[in-house]
């Protein structure tokens, strides 16, 4: 005997493990045992392999890795004795799963065992195959299993039938092979075989239309007879459960009948009687009886039943719903979900009971009931249902609030017929559970408010009131801040008071108080604070007397450690102090957000939203930033976005998903006066004048975002500011020096210019591309885009292969016509695409150093 082999018996090991008091002790014991098992396996110790695998299984159940024992299982399976095979197969089923490749090695052993003379060994093989075979193995061994379906031994027959179920689940194509053996199984008397056979037929129906038809034609009669027999059978001790003979068989047959009768009027008619008999005769005082009734009702709902039968079913449903047993009620709610499509009136009648279930102490029942309520909502009952649900929201459990809130919000959105009701309900929900409300929901609320000018005053006042009571709900706070910022003067001057409102006076200082308190109380929430700052800026314009106080508040954040807040504070402070002349236009009322585009964009832009969030993450503060007016900041360099004149089909992701919220600065920047001093307003604000590739001042509280492919006049005006320092009035010299249009570490582009004296507007540009890297570029494509007043015509390049290290060049010519020659300089945005070692690269740039006079 091997001196290192584990002398402990299985039960000793289990005792030792159970005696451990700490996890570390247990790990030590397990480690020791595993080591002993490993050495025993490597010594090829036959006597102890049975025990080793048993130990390994126990260790595996505890959660430790045991893959070193897998091959041992295979060896045991291949050995001749029954007990070895048995433990080997069990080890196989526990320690392996169908994803492991080792499993394939068992196929041969399985094949032999399937043909063994010992029926119990055949049984072992069928069991293992039926529990974990992969699709490959299923295909290989299907013929053996088919053959076994026809043996005489009921034990093997039933195992083969269940094994076949797994085979057709893994390889549905094989279903047709099993069709006729399955039907012959239904003629058996043995209950085990019948149960397995009926189950096999059910799975065949799910997988194959043909099998379904075949069974419908040939087996319906037989099935009904089986059901009748067991329904009417006298007491049979072997199969009796709670006074019913073999409820399992009852249930399976009922399910198969459901599949056969579904959509087929003849079959449905044929089985009508037996269903009625089962539904009325079955006793419902024990679980077994109720299980049968449940299945029966499901079947009645699933076929083309007569109205009498339906009434029977609905009655059972009603009884279940008012049963005190929680299991029965749960099951009843399930049945009701199916019943809605069949007879929704009947289900509506139970609405009150269902609402009670939403408030039940059992979490599973609450969940079911809520789903059911959601299906029941229609235009007539939406209002009372919403009221009930919101009332419950107040008292519901924390873990349920999330689900409940999202369902309520969906209902409100779907079924609101008047804006006022919608706003009221949303304010209530936000007050009760604002922290569970998703962002897109309160964004929708803002869109709705901005589209309802007559309700804006009412909205801001309701929100103000709600805020006084529930200021810890973040979404409520955010919506309130936005509304106070936008509609502050309506709040204070009681604009648009509705009949139902109670009179209320809010002073300017009260409104500013709200914002100030938000800044202090929500000091950890960057989004809220950012929104507060811009709302304050708006108020400093809408409430001129409070401007001083607003400025003080904003100034306190100049030293904020959060970059976003610091930047906003400084910029807004600067606007208030030095730029009063444009302040009011900056913070004018937001343009109305188009609701229909918003809704459709939202429906289709969940993908884009994700990318927006991601791109927003790149911003320094890391929070998902939205400007208070909702404009998402472009992730790319703002200058590149500004022109956005590219030939790209795909605009910057941020612009699609948040397009619906217009940019703030839709204002008249006509006075883009390029003052001689370096502090050009626009240059300050828009951080123009920085080179394209740098990201020195990425975001700005009021950045312009031109819509893709619409170069407005204002945009070009900005370019004026750009080139203003360099513009020379007067005649252009005919000699235009070449420029390095673009240079990066990997690429250099030079432009040289020719003009004909009689066509001052036209310039020919000769571009030369040089590869500065050490690898050659292929598929080299150059693209350019220009403002609207310029026309561009590109000639083809002389090649699209650019050798490395400047060893060769590509040249390309294009012609530019400047329709505003003499008034506006050239500007161009370029994009170069090429492949390096089969990887695609893209470089983009802006050319703003054209010589003057082009």
């Amino acid at each position, binding site marked *: 005997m091997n001196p290192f082999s584990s002398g402990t018996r299985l039960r000793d090991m289990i005792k030792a493990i*159970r005696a451990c008091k700490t996890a570390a002790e247990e790990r030590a014991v397990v480690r020791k045992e595993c080591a002993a098992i490993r050495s025993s396996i490597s010594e090829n110790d036959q006597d102890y392999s049975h025990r080793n695998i048993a130990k390994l299984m126990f260790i595996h159940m505890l959660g430790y890795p045991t893959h070193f024992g897998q091959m041992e299982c295979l060896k045991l399976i291949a050995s001749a004795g029954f007990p070895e095979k*048995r433990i080997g197969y069990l080890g196989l089923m526990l320690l392996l799963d169908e994803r492991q490749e080792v499993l394939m090695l068992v196929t041969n052993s399985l094949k032999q065992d399937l043909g063994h003379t010992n029926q119990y060994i055949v049984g072992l093989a069928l*069991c293992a195959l039926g529990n974990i075979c992969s699709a490959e193995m299923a295909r290989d061994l299907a013929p053996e299993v088919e053959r076994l379906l026809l043996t005489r031994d009921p*034990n093997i027959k039933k*195992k083969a039938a269940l094994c076949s179920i797994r085979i057709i689940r893994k390889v549905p194509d094989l279903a047709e092979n099993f069709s006729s053996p399955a039907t012959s199984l239904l003629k058996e008397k043995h209950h*085990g075989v019948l*149960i397995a056979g009926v189950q096999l037929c059910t799975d065949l129906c799910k997988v194959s239309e043909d099998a379904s038809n075949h069974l419908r034609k040939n087996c319906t009669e037989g099935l009904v007879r089986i059901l009748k027999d067991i329904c009417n059978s006298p007491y049979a001790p072997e199969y009796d459960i709670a006074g019913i003979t073999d409820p*399992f068989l009852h249930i399976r047959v009922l399910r198969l009948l459901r599949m056969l009768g579904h959509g087929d009027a003849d079959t449905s008619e044929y089985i009508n009687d037996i269903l009625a008999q089962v539904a009325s005769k079955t006793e419902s005082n024990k679980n077994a009886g109720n299980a049968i009734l449940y299945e029966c009702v499901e079947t009645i709902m699933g076929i083309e039943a007569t109205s009498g039968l339906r009434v029977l079913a609905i009655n059972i449903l009603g009884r279940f719903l008012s049963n005190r047993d*929680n299991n029965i009620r749960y099951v009843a709610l399930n049945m009701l979900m199916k019943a809605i499509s069949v007879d929704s009136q009947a289900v509506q009648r139970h609405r009150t009971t269902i609402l009670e279930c939403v408030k039940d102490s059992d979490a599973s029942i609450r969940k079911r009931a809520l789903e059911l309520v959601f299906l029941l909502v229609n235009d007539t009952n939406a209002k009372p249902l919403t009221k009930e649900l919101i009332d419950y929201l107040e008292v519901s459990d924390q873990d349920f609030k999330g689900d409940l809130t999202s369902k309520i919000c969906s209902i409100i959105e779907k079924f609101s017929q008047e804006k006022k009701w919608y706003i009221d309900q949303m304010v209530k929900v936000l007050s009760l559970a604002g922290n569970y409300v998703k962002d897109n929901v309160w964004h929708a609320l803002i869109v709705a408010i901005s589209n309802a000018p007559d309700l804006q005053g009412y909205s801001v006042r309701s929100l103000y009131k709600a805020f006084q009571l529930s200021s810890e709900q973040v979404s409520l706070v955010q919506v309130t801040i936005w509304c106070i910022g936008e509609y502050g003067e309506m709040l204070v001057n009681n604009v648009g008071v509705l009949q139902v409102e109670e009179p209320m006076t809010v002073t300017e200082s009260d409104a500013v108080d709200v914002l100030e308190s938000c800044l202090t109380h929500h000091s950890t929430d960057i989004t809220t604070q950012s929104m507060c700052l811009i709302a304050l800026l708006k108020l400093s314009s809408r409430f001129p007397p409070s401007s001083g106080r607003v400025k003080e508040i904003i100034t306190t954040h100049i030293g904020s450690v959060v970059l976003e807040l610091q930047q906003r504070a400084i910029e807004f402070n600067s606007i208030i102090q030095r730029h009063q002349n444009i302040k009011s236009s900056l913070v004018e009322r937001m343009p109305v957000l188009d609701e229909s585009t918003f809704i459709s964009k939202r429906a289709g832009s969940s993908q884009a939203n994700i990318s927006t969030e991601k791109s927003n993450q790149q911003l320094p503060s890391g929070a998902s930033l939205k400007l208070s007016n909702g404009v998402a900041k472009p992730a790319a360099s703002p200058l590149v976005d500004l022109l956005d004149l590219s030939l790209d089909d795909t605009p910057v992701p941020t612009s699609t998903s948040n397009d619906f919220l217009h940019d703030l600065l839709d204002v008249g920047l006509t006075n883009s006066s390029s003052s001689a001093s370096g502090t050009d307003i626009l240059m300050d604000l828009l951080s123009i004048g920085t080179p394209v590739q740098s990201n020195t001042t990425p975001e700005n509280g009021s950045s312009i975002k031109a819509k893709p492919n619409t170069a407005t006049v204002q945009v070009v005006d900005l370019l004026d500011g750009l080139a203003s320092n360099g513009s020379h009035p007067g005649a252009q010299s005919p000699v235009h020096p070449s420029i390095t249009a673009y240079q990066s570490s990997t690429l250099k582009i030079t432009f040289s210019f020719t003009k004909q004296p009689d066509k001052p507007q036209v310039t020919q540009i000769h571009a030369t591309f040089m590869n500065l890297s050490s690898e050659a570029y292929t598929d080299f494509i150059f693209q350019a885009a220009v403002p609207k007043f310029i026309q561009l015509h590109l000639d083809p390049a002389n090649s699209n292969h650019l050798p490395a290290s400047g060893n060769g060049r590509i040249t390309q010519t294009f012609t530019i016509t400047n329709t505003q020659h003499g008034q506006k300089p050239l500007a161009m945005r370029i994009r170069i695409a090429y492949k390096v070692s089969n990887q695609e690269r893209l470089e983009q740039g802006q050319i703003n150093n054209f010589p003057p006079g082009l």
Partner: protein
Amino acid sequence: MSTGRLRTKAIRELSSLILTRGPKLCNFVEWKGYKAVYRRYASLYFCMCVDQDDNELEILEIIHHFVEILDRYFGSVCELDLIFNFHKAYYILDEILIAGELQESSKKIVARLIAAQVRSAMLLDWGKWAINSK
């Protein structure tokens, strides 16, 4: 994630879901799109995970069917029986379920099959012993 880790994670999640439920609540818990049906016997919980369209009440009966057979085999089964003879418990389970479906509704037949296999195993063992002791 490896199968082993998935398995441990699933067991941990389900256990915490089920063990925290009070005694009067229904025996069904929804988990990851499946339904977990459980039944408590003294300090032991038997839990089965099924699809949405399975009959929960029947699953309760199947659990009880299994437990009664265990009871008959071990003679008043207790938790320790299952711990020290887990492989036998699995052999019994293999006579009741295959491919997740019910195999035999008669407790008598299951008991007979188990006994026959035990005899079969013993016979072969005796044979080996007889050969070795020569």
